[in-house]
């Protein structure tokens, strides 16, 4: 199976690659549209700011490739946010593979932003992506922006308000948390994604 990591410039790209190696999969890093289109699975990792990441995808001429890709595509953290239509972070237009807009998490008393640390997942609906992951399992989050819970949300999380922690709409999938740093739960999600039809 050919798995490709999209080189969107995020600092966590090495960590995602190592996590896949722990699953026995060597996923090359690529900024090449042809290589990405030929892959069986595509992962879009990301740490940083939405505007800078979109700018990099434009520079690499990968926007239309990612918008028309018909193979399973997993966005991680910022990578998941880029799958939506737009982000409030830098008022940037994103890939539009999922409906909706990514917004800033609401800061309120006792709720620290960025949302940083281990938090519980609440299963919203069954999905092959969440096989072996139970309601209440913890995952590692680091983010200040998030998408709202909607029909494609398969797991939600709460920090001040509920937000989408994992999504799936056909071949398009996303994790707001970091599977590469979420212990057993994260490794399971990555393994499930590799096995997705």
């Amino acid at each position, binding site marked *: 199976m050919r798995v490709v990591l999209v080189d969107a410039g995020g*600092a*966590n790209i*090495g*960590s995602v690659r*190592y*996590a896949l*190696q*722990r699953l026995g999969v060597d996923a090359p890093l690529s900024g090449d549209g042809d290589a990405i289109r030929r892959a069986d699975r595509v992962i879009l990792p990301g*740490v*940083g*700011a939405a505007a800078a990441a979109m700018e990099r995808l434009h520079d690499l001429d990968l926007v239309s490739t990612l918008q028309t890709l018909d193979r399973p595509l997993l966005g991680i953290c910022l990578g998941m946010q880029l799958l939506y239509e737009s982000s409030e972070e830098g008022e940037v237009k994103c890939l539009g593979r999922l409906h909706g807009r990514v917004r800033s998490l609401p*800061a309120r008393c*006792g709720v*620290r*932003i*960025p*949302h*940083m*640390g*281990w*938090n*519980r997942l609440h299963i919203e609906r069954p999905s092959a992506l969440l096989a072996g992951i139970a309601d209440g399992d*913890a995952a*590692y989050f*680091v*983010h*200040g922006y998030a998408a709202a819970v909607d029909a494609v949300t398969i797991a939600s999380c*709460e*920090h001040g308000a509920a937000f989408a922690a994992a999504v799936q709409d056909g071949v398009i999938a996303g994790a707001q948390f*970091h599977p*590469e*740093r*979420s*212990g*057993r739960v*994260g*490794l399971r999600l990555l393994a499930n994604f590799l096995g997705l039809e």
Partner: protein
Amino acid sequence: MLSRRIIPCLDVRDGKVVKGVRFRAHVVMGAIEDLATRYRDEGADELVFYDITASPQGRTVDRAWVERVARILDIPFCVAGGIGSVADARAILHAGADKISINSPALRRPDLIAELAQAFGRQCVVVGIDSLRDADGQWRVRRDSGDPAATQALPLRTLDWIEQAQHLGAGEIVLNCMGSDGVRGGYDIQQLRAARAICAVPLIASGGAGSAAHFVDAFAQADVDGALAASVFHDGSLRIGELKRVLRQSGVEVRDGD
């Protein structure tokens, strides 16, 4: 609900984990990978690696071991020691660290915090603060405290520095209360509470942990997001599994280990 984090801190010297008073005889505890794996298996939520010789030797952290740790670890980790520029930080983050922690270089040049936040996002920029109460009752910042001979007391008030660091783009503050550090008499609850009141980003308590009850106090009384400790974990006097059991019984939300 967001769990409170338990964070063992590992001092690294010449590629090995050591314990002991800084700049005195160090006991080599073992290979970095072995201890990282051990703490991960015990249920640590995050690890901090502090390269204790990087800063005094005027070099940045050796990225080879950072990469080895990143390959095996499936929990987040932060690296500290001698990071004084965006280029230093990039090398560490690209080697696989999730966060970088800066202390004295940020005091020398506060704009470094803003530059790092701009380059990588504030979520991976941790500002470590060494703080001590002066004779007039004010908490003030110490610089270069890794080397007792070089440590300088600054006129900067700790609470002012916390506000400034957040304003510049710190995504997390680690407050090391030097008065309680190494004594194992408990975290400095009064100082942590004062810091908490003005700290809107995650706040990590450091210095003084000697028992499970000390962690309960830090979370329950000072509302910190995480608690960092070294010797109490290293010498085996407190196991993380046991600590989390006590925390859970005391109503503190913690993550179950794998």
